[in-house]
């Protein structure tokens, strides 16, 4: 297209060859979310009450702590990809877009890390019951 400089000819024409992978991982993590969130809802509904002591006992079981950590990874990975698309669609300015994607990475990795650490802390130190 066009008869400009070489950079001018390619700028703005899209594919950086990452799209298919992004699309696929969005779906892989969507399936992860589906299974793990369904597990969480069912597991929570089966609890008799939601007192702190009881939740500590529940969360310190490996069969709860491990899926909970996996769910955090799946959710935060999925939302990291999803919000990236949102940012790319609505923020045209390259500099601002770059900055916000950095913030998004901090949010996604930080959020997952905090959640996983909280679960690990309960799992390793918690047993009240």
């Amino acid at each position, binding site marked *: 297209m066009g008869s400009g400089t070489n950079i001018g000819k390619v700028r703005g024409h899209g594919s950086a060859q990452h799209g298919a992978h992004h699309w696929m991982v969005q779906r892989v993590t969507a399936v992860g979310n589906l299974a793990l969130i369904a597990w969480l809802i069912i597991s929570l509904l089966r609890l008799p009450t939601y007192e*702190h002591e009881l939740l500590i006992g529940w969360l310190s079981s490996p069969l709860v702590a491990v899926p909970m950590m996996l769910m955090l990874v799946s959710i935060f990975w999925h939302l990291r990809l999803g919000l990236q698309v949102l940012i790319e669609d609505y923020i*045209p300015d390259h500099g601002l877009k770059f900055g916000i994607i950095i913030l998004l990475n901090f949010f996604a990795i930080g959020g997952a890390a905090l959640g996983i650490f*909280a679960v690990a802390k309960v799992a390793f130190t918690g047993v009240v019951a």
Partner: protein
Amino acid sequence: MHPEIGHAAQKNPAILFACRYVFAKALVRLQRLQPCAGSLIRGQKLVKPTNRPLSPHLGIYKWGPAMLVSILHRATGDALALLGAPILVWWLYSISAGPESYEFFTGIMTTIPGFIVMIGMTFALFEHTYSGLRHFVLDAGAGYELQTNKLWSAAVPVLALFSTAALWFFISSKLIG
């Protein structure tokens, strides 16, 4: 115009015609180079005509269930990401930080605004999940027939509302009963 060409043109109408043609073409090119929607992006130099097609804006589309579900998929995904996921982490954090911290969390989440947020997040989750399942079907290349597409698009928010109501009915009957 170059004097020589002008001179020749006076003698030869064909050359005059050719010159006019070239100028007209150049003028059109120049007009295309005027800044338009795509060229206003800061930090990008305009180096080529930006008369590539733009998609029409929202206003011209006729509303239908498929459009609603598509918009809701994005809106609910973003709401879950920006509000739901932080609340999930706060919940886990508050459990790990001890009984007072957990009570602070449940205290806030059981106020009226807290319930509105929790019920809203429940609806967002069901809406996004069912609409995500619809994505999988469409990804597989199925469900594009107009009537089928309309049916499942309309079914998604209805099922989501129904699921939200059913879940909260279950929770309230459990907490009260």
